[in-house]
């Protein structure tokens, strides 16, 4: 089916436009995302909402979620930025295979990540066994939650930043190096400022992913109020016994997510 209106008139600089039929599947796809969110809002018991979201268990879960997500985002930055730079710029052998492995958490079901973490940091795990001897226990602690969140969130930062680095190219870096700047200076003064938007969006994505982490946490870290029971885990628990509380908390998580994405969008627009 052709739509005449989309043919640009001779001499006009109007954009090519969008074929009208495209709006049908586009609308359906958008509805698939939007309608459930509307359904969630409709289901909220507004009279009980303040009481439900300010219960001690809810506040503990929200605070724990924000605290652990912030920590794991910081860890993602500390490790992910160097990793992305190495992947984008280094010509060392085997980086392609390493990149493929690092992207795995993006496509793995989180519960698989949780099992993998269990056999790494668990009491009888690859590293956990030795940590246990030293008196360090990771399982059932907030550290376990942070590890699970970092595991699933790290690839988001690396992918965004590496993409930005490749798009930016290395022309300016080459010029700076020719002018006598040392690699450290080039990285700090040229490379990172150049990819700042990619870095910001990667950071936001990591934070959002960490905030939503559930599968790996419940498999690996456990579920205890104020220690390991993050907001998604609390929602899952409440869903069975107090669906109204689960809906109210879900809305809180949606609002936090919207706020995070809004902040990122705003900052990107300002730039």
């Amino acid at each position, binding site marked *: 089916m052709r739509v005449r209106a989309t043919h640009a008139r001779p001499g006009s600089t109007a954009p090519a436009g969008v074929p009208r039929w495209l709006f049908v*599947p586009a609308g*359906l796809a958008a509805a698939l995302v939007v309608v459930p969110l509307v359904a969630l809002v409709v289901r909220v018991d507004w009279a009980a909402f303040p009481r439900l979201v300010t219960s001690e268990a809810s506040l503990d879960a929200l605070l724990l979620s924000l605290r652990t997500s912030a920590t794991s985002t910081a860890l993602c930055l500390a490790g992910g930025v160097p990793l992305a730079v190495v992947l984008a710029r280094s010509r060392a052998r085997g980086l392609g295979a390493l990149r493929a492995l690092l992207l795995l958490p993006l496509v793995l079901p989180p519960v698989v990540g949780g099992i993998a973490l*269990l056999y790494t940091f*668990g*009491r*009888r795990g690859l590293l956990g066994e030795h940590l246990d001897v030293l008196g360090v*226990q990771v*399982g*059932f602690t907030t550290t376990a939650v942070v590890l699970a969140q970092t595991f699933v969130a790290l690839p988001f930062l690396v992918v965004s930043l590496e993409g930005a680095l490749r798009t930016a190219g290395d022309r300016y870096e080459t010029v700076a190096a020719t002018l006598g700047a040392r690699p450290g200076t080039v990285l700090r003064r040229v490379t990172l400022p150049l990819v700042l938007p990619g870095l910001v969006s990667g950071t936001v994505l990591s934070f959002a992913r960490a905030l939503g982490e559930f599968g790996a946490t*419940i498999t690996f*870290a*456990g*579920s*205890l*109020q104020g*220690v*390991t*029971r993050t907001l998604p885990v609390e929602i*899952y*628990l409440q*869903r*069975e*016994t107090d*669906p109204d509380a689960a809906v109210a908390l879900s809305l809180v998580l949606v609002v936090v997510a919207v706020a995070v994405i809004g902040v990122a969008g705003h900052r990107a627009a300002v730039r």
Partner: protein
Amino acid sequence: MVVAGVLLLGGCGGGSDEQVLTVYAAASLTGTFTELADTFEEQHDGVEVRLSFGGSSDLATQVVEGAPTDVFASADEATMTRLTDEQLVEEPTPFATNRLEIAVPPGNPAGVSTLADLAGADLVVCAPAVPCGAAAVALAETAGVRLDPVSEEQSVTDVLGKVASGEAEAGLVYETDVLAADGDVEGVAVPEAASVVNRYPIAVVAGSEEPGLAEELVALVTGTEGRRVLTAAGFGPP
């Protein structure tokens, strides 16, 4: 695209004039109900029993939300009451009892032999909102001990998993779970548990499309064959 998707989905369920009976049962009934469902299918030609196991409260919530179910078996009476109160199920029948036991990893690394010993071990229990957790709270009250768990899990199978993997040093699960774990965990009997017994009720779901078949399945579970299978798995009489 959407039409194709619907056709694909439709295609999956097709090809049968077979009657399907859907049974929701507490996670602790996994072994026994799988066996009883096989027996039922053998006795009823052209009937397929679909089993869904999970935490009782989770399953009850799904029934409330209108999940197409024919029979519901819960691990405690409180959860079943949620459904009888809303007239979502027919009159329930108690068919088994179970009591808590301490499960420890093979070799009992923390040396747990009584409820009081749990204070010194990494203990995992069910969350108080689910039947096995409610039973754990009741047991602690009866015995006059304070439980200080490192994690409160969603279902008894989650607790069992944490103990079997050695991640937790002790867990409170049902006696039958320890038997079913078949050596993955060791059981430590708790005399105090005798006074905190979970009674398992089973009921036909009110909206069942196969009420006759559902009644027959309930009769199988509550009858002599059900009694034999349940006893062999360690369940007590109702």
